[in-house]
């Protein structure tokens, strides 16, 4: 498990040796990784070096096949058709819910709500839980390393309901200040909403103990698992999380699908977030009664094909072995950290042991956007910008960073190509 390992562990083996993980076989399942970029008529471009998986990951054939099969052979609307095909599609959709349940080790499928992404899942909680359990002056504790998706919904609730937002600070290495966190948990605190793993720093937060600290005061906790569900094993019952959200497209699944896990006793007491079909029990103009969770939160035709694709992605990742993937990503992280640190003028943000394979960095000679543009011409795709985490950028006194993020298909050669491309940047911008 990545979380238990130091960032820079002792290496006794050569980088490629004794790896039980066949990354070349993995890569063959991702057709896009074989393409070139910047192609022109009469000239083949550069091979793609894809290091932007934290923004969105590429898809294996298994996911695309599942989506295609759902449309080609098993497509009809779910939950309302009396006909055979509708029942088949419904079975597949509900089987996907079971796959997600098992992935998170939730107690029951009734605790798994499909959304269109992590953002919608957080908005659902902010609206439904927020309107029900938060009153003016009540406090929500966030952290300085949150993605905008876990900041703005709470600010909207602040405007509409007068809640108060408190923020856990981050230290210079990128670690949450747990003493400050403890001190922020007060009599008015009703919810803690923090990320499991930072999309900028790679920091894996000690969420189990943070949840325990909150629960001592009967404070509910929402975890943003957008990166956590990709890089770490998640056991919502072991963590005792009240809510856990993640998105499918970062987990090698389709776009337009996400998950809200919520403890049943919360979901039962939360009102619907949106109204429509599927989520009702009976409707009349005088009175409508609502379906049970999770249908209560899934108004309208759900993205069931995408949910089936997500289940295929989870099966795929689980089939590779989450431990094996984590070990592979850790090797990439260690190697990338060593190589990048050896480049003069490179500074890495986020140095907490046990971090995930996300490396944000700056170069003293070039702005991240220039870095991104230049290395793109070498076929190296990274993210450059504020990563939807402007408060964190401000904390570190930078407007932007370059970020290389690794997935289960990346290789040590990808790191070498990144490093070589950064040499081009130094040639151009070096004083």
């Amino acid at each position, binding site marked *: 498990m990545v979380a238990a390992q130091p960032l820079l562990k002792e290496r006794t083996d050569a980088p490629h040796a004794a790896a039980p993980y066949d990354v070349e076989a993995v890569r063959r399942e991702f057709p896009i990784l074989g393409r070139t970029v*910047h192609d022109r008529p009469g000239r083949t471009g550069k091979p793609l070096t894809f290091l932007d998986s934290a923004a969105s990951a590429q898809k294996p054939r298994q996911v695309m096949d599942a989506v295609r099969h759902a449309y080609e052979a098993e497509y009809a609307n779910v939950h309302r058709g009396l006909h055979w095909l509708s029942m088949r599609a419904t079975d597949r959709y509900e089987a996907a819910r079971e796959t997600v349940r098992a992935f998170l080790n939730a107690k029951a499928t009734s605790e798994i709500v499909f959304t269109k992404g992590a953002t919608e899942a957080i908005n659902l909680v902010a609206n439904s839980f927020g309107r029900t359990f938060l009153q003016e002056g009540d406090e929500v504790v966030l952290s300085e390393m949150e993605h905008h998706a876990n900041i703005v919904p709470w600010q909207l609730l602040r405007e509409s309901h007068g809640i108060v937002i408190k923020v856990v600070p981050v230290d210079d290495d990128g670690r949450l200040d747990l003493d400050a966190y403890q001190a922020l948990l007060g009599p008015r605190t009703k919810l803690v909403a923090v990320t499991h793993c930072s999309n900028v720093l790679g920091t894996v937060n000690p969420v189990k103990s943070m949840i325990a600290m909150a629960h001592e005061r009967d404070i509910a906790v929402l975890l943003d698992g957008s990166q956590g569900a990709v890089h770490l094993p998640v056991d919502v019952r072991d963590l005792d999380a009240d809510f856990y959200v993640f998105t499918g497209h970062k987990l090698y699944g389709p776009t337009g699908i996400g998950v809200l896990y919520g403890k049943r006793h919360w979901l039962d007491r939360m009102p619907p977030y949106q109204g429509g079909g599927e989520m009702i029990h009976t409707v009349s103009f005088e009175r409508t009664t609502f379906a049970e969770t999770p249908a209560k939160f899934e108004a309208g035709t759900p993205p069931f094909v995408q949910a089936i694709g997500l289940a295929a992605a989870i099966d795929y990742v689980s089939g590779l072995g989450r431990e094996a993937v984590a070990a592979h990503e850790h090797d990439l992280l260690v190697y990338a950290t060593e190589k990048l640190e050896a480049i003069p003028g490179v500074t890495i943000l986020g140095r907490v042991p046990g971090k995930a394979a996300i490396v944000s960095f700056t170069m003293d000679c070039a702005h991240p956007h220039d870095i991104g543009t230049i290395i793109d011409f070498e076929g190296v795709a990274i993210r450059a910008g504020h990563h939807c985490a402007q408060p964190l950028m401000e904390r570190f006194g930078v*407007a932007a960073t370059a970020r290389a993020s690794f997935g289960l298909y990346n290789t040590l050669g990808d790191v070498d190509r990144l490093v070589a491309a950064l040499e081009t940047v130094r040639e151009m911008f070096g004083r």
Partner: protein
Amino acid sequence: MSDDLRELYQELVLDHGRHPRNRRHPDSFNHEAFGKNPMCGDALVVYLMLDPQGVVTDCAFMGEGCAISMASASLMTEIVRGKTVDQANALFAAFQHLATGEGEVDESVLDEDDLDRLQALSGVRQFPIRVKCATLAWHTLHAAMQGEEMVSTE
């Protein structure tokens, strides 16, 4: 290295990007505006001194950003000095045309040397995502001349 990349990062751009001219907070100015590119987070402030005849007697800026945005701001502060507001607006239009290929340019009111220098930034045309880096300073200058305090490239 690719030709497009060389075109984008010409020597003049690299020079002004590394060593921006007039990046300072002037002692006196009578117009200023804050410009922001929300997509990338780049932000800068443009300071202007206009004399009673509407001639730019000083132009400076503060801010940090990529080489393209710094070079564009730096070149702009040099070029607009001594120009009237009308001439500066014409240069803004010319620059937008250069960077995007859109709009019309009335070259009769423009100085050829100025156009040559601005031409150094025309490489952004091949990089749609970077056009806003190049035009941020000009949008901000425009806002300052109009008496607006804030402008966004969105």
